[in-house]
């Protein structure tokens, strides 16, 4: 599994979405994305990808692909 697929699976679990439902172009506002999800994503980026993401960058993210870009830096 590549990192993009792995992120999709991680986000599905974190946001309690259907398994294998994310493709990458989904808008975050349609995915239970709230302030608690931002906190959880910061921890997940650190834990699963070893990346210390910038909080304002996470808040600026519009879709799943934007989140993938953050953990790919």
């Amino acid at each position, binding site marked *: 599994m590549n990192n993009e697929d792995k992120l999709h699976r991680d986000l599905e679990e974190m946001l309690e979405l259907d398994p294998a439902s994310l493709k990458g172009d989904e808008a975050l506002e349609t995915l239970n994305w709230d302030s608690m999800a931002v906190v959880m994503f910061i*921890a997940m980026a650190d834990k699963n990808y070893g990346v210390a993401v910038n*909080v304002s960058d996470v808040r600026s993210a519009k879709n799943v692909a934007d989140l993938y870009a953050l953990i790919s830096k």
Partner: protein
Amino acid sequence: MAKSTFHNARVAGIACTLPENEVSTEAIASVLGLPPRRIVAMTGIEKRRVAPPHICASDLCADATERLLATLGWKKESIEALIFVSQTPDYILPATACTLQHRLGLSKECASFDVNQGCSGYIYGLWLASSLVETGLQRVLLLVGDTLNRISSEEDKSVAFLFGDSGSATAMERIPATSHFILGTDGGGAGNLIIEAGQCRQRPNSVNSLRVEVEGGKRSPTELFMDGSEVMAFTLREVPPLFEQLLGYAGLQRSQLDGIVMHQANKFLIENLARKIDMPLELIPLSLSEFGNTSCASIPVTISACLREVVSAKSLTLALLGFGVGWSWSACTLSLNSISTPEIAFLK
């Protein structure tokens, strides 16, 4: 870097007093229209103690002090300094420590002063008390407590279910015991945990005292703002290296620690921090489920709630970690050896 080692400052006892009034997360979540299951899973907080209007942090600390001194059998005239650490003092002035000296009946020869620190505040207080004892005083009282619910909006989803009110008293004495401290600051993070109005930068007035719609609810500028995402990022960034520095400075291996008592920020944050510092959760006691995030007193509350029987009977080598508002951080290693720990009491 602010590093200190002490060889003649021992914690003789710790006591905590909390308000009797209890509020469940379920109750507040239903008011805010939030799912209680998700909040409890994230924060670890099932319920908290919330002080009624007539109880201040000083009242909780005074009760804890009376009970601690009685347990220790210390005479009040033997106390040479009183430190009160709080973000919710009784007054802007005078220092609440001065009023506590009087109401507790301590000697007029007792030095008394306040310290404004939150999440890092207990260890700051221990550091100061240890410094005073190391340099000649025989007995010092460290009173640490907050009633953050008094200055938080119950309509703000980021804080409404988080804080528990509490007070603590810790007795320090000049007896051989070794401890190591490291403290640090990054005031660049001040805006992430702040009450902007109500003091001198912005005096309270009819406008800034009104709650307005903000992201996640309603809050006035005279109430606490917290950016939980920035708190998480800050903690994961600063605390793991702090812990490594502490172990190196104290000359301790992880296996030599009997426990790590962290500031009880929330369960999700502590679990992530445990992973980052490579310590098992079994060694990290939590008082969150019963008492919530008890601000500057969360470390003594956790010791009293989770380790009371052990530290009163034998010696534990502990690391303490405090981190948050400021940004401010503090860490220490010390041994708690057969200390006096009266049971947690609840004030009406």
